[in-house]
């Protein structure tokens, strides 16, 4: 069964997908609305024209790139719909569901090594080049030139810039305000909450440490919605300067951090200290068909469910983590048949345009096959280190990704060979980006210590 809506949109708006009207929620992403209307195949890959669907639902993959209102390559998981928005598939020949160029995928069965293909054969190279240019690429030029931007780059002066509005960033912003620092908090999405928003409604999350009890939470169990509501209220009351849909795009010369907002364009933030709370990217499972629509992270499946969309009726869950556990519970409560794999690993998923079955190997290597609509995976996330490293952070390679190194108070250890001319002078990191498992209670305790350390640098009187 294709995905379906389990809850009508709270604030319905009509959008159009290739001529068909779909009711979307003004407060949820366009991608959620499309998946909720049963559409998992949203995009095509640039070389092989493989079918693609959303796998992360938070701007970290190519699975939901579409043309929206004549603008190509819009990450539909990252933006909310306006009434009458026109959404179209891109990179397709014939139709989205029957893309003729899919033949490329079968022709190059193992991959396409462009270094050696037809190299050195006069003529063939040019033919190949022309062919490659024709079939590959992402989207076509916009319908119209983009509207003129404001001249110059406005600058926001503040004490501390916090990047990332998840559990770690929210706790840090509130703690810093409590000590009297001016705080700008940027998040690239339309709502605060980060990975907390990747839990279905009603989910509970473990608080591992005993300090949770001391701070008013019950040990072992935190209600995500209550926590979110409390955090947002604290942020509001504390007077944090929150910038939503503000993607911090890079760090220039250490202390110029730039963000782009869809309406305001490019904005510079000059802060005396920077806190990176950027969280983690989904883990990437490696099995045959791992890019098929219907293969998605537990966080993506959880985001969809929070938006009122169930990704399938028969769902296989691979890997462990709070999001997988919460998703499995919530999906079962909605009537889905959910199998959580134990002592077995996914060998492959099959299906022409979306997941139809998954082949699983047990410990002895015996293969069995299950029919299903979705494969949901979970595991340790890969720290979102990009901005921290641009700002001069040292990292350590772990199996799951590159951890930003910080001391016990959250101050980032400098890269011995910084890649930029001048690293940020006062750089801090907290949460999943620093290799910690998602634990809002532990993050709150750490945010307190971190904010004290930041204040020593910034020197604001409390």
């Amino acid at each position, binding site marked *: 069964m294709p995905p379906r809506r389990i809850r009508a949109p709270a604030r319905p708006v009509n959008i159009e997908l290739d001529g068909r009207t779909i009711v979307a929620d003004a407060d949820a992403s366009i991608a959620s609305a499309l998946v909720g209307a049963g559409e998992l195949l949203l995009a095509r890959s640039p070389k092989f024209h*493989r079918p693609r669907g959303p796998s992360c639902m938070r701007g970290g993959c190519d699975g939901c790139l579409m043309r929206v209102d004549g603008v190509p390559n819009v990450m539909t998981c*990252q933006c909310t719909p306006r009434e009458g928005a026109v959404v179209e598939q891109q990179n397709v020949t014939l139709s989205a569901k029957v893309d003729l160029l899919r033949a490329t995928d079968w022709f190059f069965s193992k991959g396409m*090594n462009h270094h050696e293909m037809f190299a050195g054969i006069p003529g063939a190279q040019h033919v190949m080049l022309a062919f490659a240019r024709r079939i590959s690429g992402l989207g076509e030029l916009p319908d119209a030139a983009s509207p003129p931007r404001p001249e110059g780059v406005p600058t926001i002066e503040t004490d501390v810039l916090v990047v990332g509005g998840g559990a770690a960033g929210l706790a840090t912003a509130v703690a810093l305000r409590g000590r009297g620092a001016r705080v700008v908090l940027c998040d690239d999405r339309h709502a605060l909450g980060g990975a907390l928003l990747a839990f279905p409604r009603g989910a509970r999350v473990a608080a591992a440490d005993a300090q949770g009890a001391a701070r008013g939470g019950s040990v072992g169990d935190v209600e995500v919605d209550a926590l979110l509501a409390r955090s947002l209220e604290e942020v509001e009351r504390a007077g944090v300067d929150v910038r939503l849909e503000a993607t911090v795009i890079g760090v220039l010369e250490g202390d110029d951090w*730039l963000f782009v907002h869809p309406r305001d*364009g490019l904005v510079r933030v000059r802060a005396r200290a920077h806190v990176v709370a950027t969280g983690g990217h989904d883990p990437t499972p490696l099995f*045959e068909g791992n890019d098929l629509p219907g293969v998605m992270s537990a966080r993506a499946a959880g985001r969809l469910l929070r938006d009122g969309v169930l990704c399938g009726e028969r769902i296989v869950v691979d890997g462990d983590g709070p999001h997988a556990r919460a998703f499995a519970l919530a999906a079962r409560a909605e009537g889905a048949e959910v199998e959580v794999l134990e002592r077995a690993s996914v060998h492959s998923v099959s299906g022409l345009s979306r997941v139809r079955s998954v082949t699983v190997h047990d410990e002895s290597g015996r293969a069995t096959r299950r029919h299903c609509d979705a494969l949901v995976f979970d595991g340790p996330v890969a720290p979102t*280190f990009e901005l921290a490293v641009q700002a001069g952070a040292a990292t350590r390679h772990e199996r799951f990704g590159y951890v930003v190194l910080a001391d016990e108070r959250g101050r980032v250890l400098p890269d011995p060979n910084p890649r930029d001319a001048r690293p940020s002078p006062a750089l801090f990191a907290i949460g999943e980006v620093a290799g910690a498992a998602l634990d809002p209670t532990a993050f709150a305790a750490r945010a307190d210590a971190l904010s004290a350390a930041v204040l020593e640098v910034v020197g604001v009187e409390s």
Partner: protein
Amino acid sequence: MSGKILVCRCEDVTLHELEESIAKGHDDIESLKRYTGFGTGWCQGKWCLAACARVLAEKGGDAALPFTPRPPFHPVPLGDLAVIGDEPGACPPDEPGKPGDPLDH
């Protein structure tokens, strides 16, 4: 269904290609990226880098450091970046970038 295992979705790089490239001697993260093109697409490594680094480390390659993450974090319209050129102290548009200018990598 073809049996491809994708290590990089945005550039359609397969595990087979990645392993072949490592075997050819592209056994550090920067060379491997340059040879296969992983991490050079839409997501700039958000989806693929950790997986490719893990495979590289398992094959005995050097995955100690990530490849250099460049701005912008998410793709943005060029028009949003064009204003940088109007800034005092920024590179004049008709001059090549100075070495070390972070926008000129």
